[in-house]
């Protein structure tokens, strides 16, 4: 599987309601050892409708940016939600969510 298979994939609930698309994939570096480092394993998916809102880096606590830009980007990202990987299953090109109500996106600290 490639990263691009996950990014942009539609996310639906079990009842088939559209929840958005995968905007980013949250990784935690505690997987199996690969060389000197632990592998980065998938922890969850950031789900939303606006592609640019995730990759500008305003969902990190310490990123402040110019006030106006930060405010606008955070406003664009207001509907972004988080789907923990254990609640997600891949069906074809779609991601099916085990939760009907997604979680708030946790800040990366």
């Amino acid at each position, binding site marked *: 599987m490639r990263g691009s298979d996950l990014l942009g994939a539609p996310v639906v609930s079990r009842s088939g309601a559209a929840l958005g698309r995968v905007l980013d994939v949250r990784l935690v570096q505690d997987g199996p050892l690969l060389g000197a480092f632990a592998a980065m394993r998938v922890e969850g998916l950031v789900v939303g409708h606006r*592609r*640019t809102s995730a*990759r*500008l*880096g305003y969902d*990190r606590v*310490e*990123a*402040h*940016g*110019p*006030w*106006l*830009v930060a405010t606008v980007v955070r406003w664009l990202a207001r509907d972004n939600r988080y789907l923990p990987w254990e609640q997600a299953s891949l069906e074809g090109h779609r991601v099916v969510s085990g939760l009907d109500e997604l979680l708030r996106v946790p800040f990366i600290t």
Partner: protein
Amino acid sequence: MKGLLKVFLGVLTAIGGFVDIGDLVANAVVGARFGLSLAWVLVAGVVGICLFADMSGRVAAVTGRGTFDLVRERLGPRAGLANLVASTFVTFLTLAAEIGGVALAFELATSVSYLLFVPLVAFLVWFVIWRMPFEKMEQAFGLAGLCLLAFAVALWQLGPDWGELFRQASHPSVPDGEGHPTYWFYAISLFGAAMTPYEVFFFSSGAVEEGWTRKDLKTERLNVYVGFPLGGVLSLAIAATSALVLLPQGIEVDHLDQVALPTVLALGKIGLAVLIVGFVAATFGAALETALSTGYSLAQYLGWQWGKRTAPKDAARFHAVVLVAVVLGAMLVLTTLDPVKVTEYSLVFSAIALPLTYFPILVVANDPEYMAESANGRVVNALATGYLVLLTVVALAAIPLMIATKAGQ
């Protein structure tokens, strides 16, 4: 003295941005038509480019990353590609124009048709990039470009009523016989030219070429605050000399020879000789800047090894792109397309590239993961946000105004 030699990256960048062939003529056109009533645009442009060049240079010094690297990283591959296509097109058109510009300057010195010089100029541009060390290159062309200060000397020799000039500059108004759309078209052209994206591509990549680190942030700042205001002063001097000499005569500037006319009248043959050296240096410098920027932005978008510092065999695709750009540029000029007109139309593509270039710079210059304690301060951020809004407005207004005024005619 050694410290002074370090400012030439900024000087060369600014000369390539402010007094390249298109701007040499545009500043004279504006002076001859609008007097100094558009001087405020130059001031706004200088402040804007200082802000963003400083950010891009700071990011380059701290992280070793060129600007286009950041563009792709923050905008993603698609929007990054849109910017790449638009800005490479502007940069390439400008490169073609500069090759023609150097040839036009040679024509002024010899009266031999500029077209005959084009192949020679193209070869020299490529050769300098291929063989001349980066520092030597920026010192040689930056220093020779200072010959354009002849415009300032000429202005002083013409003995203008300084109070009147200052009044014109500080109380902008649209002169009689000129329409508001034309005035605003030129305002946008000057502003866009001052902030043209290849300046930050070149400046930030040049910072990497020079191996600047966090320790060189002072040098970086010095480069920005010496280089770009100097470019602005040169532009103003050109506009002022033509406002004094050509405006009263109702002369519409179309050619490089007319740009030189006020200085020739004021300073004579020596002034002319110095000016031609300045023209050659500035247009040649701009040709180097644009040729390198084409390579820098493409290589950075695609993750290729780039730079003059490495042997060409280790940055093969980068050098191949530069070579191809120079050859194609020369061919474009040889079709007898007017080099000055070419730069006027590149404005359209510039408009798309402006916000897409400066937005990622602003975002990364604030990113603590990259910048740590060198991130932007509040004042810079407030100003830069204002400029970003302005740039977006300019980008949206540029194309309708260009069509409405038939590019300022």
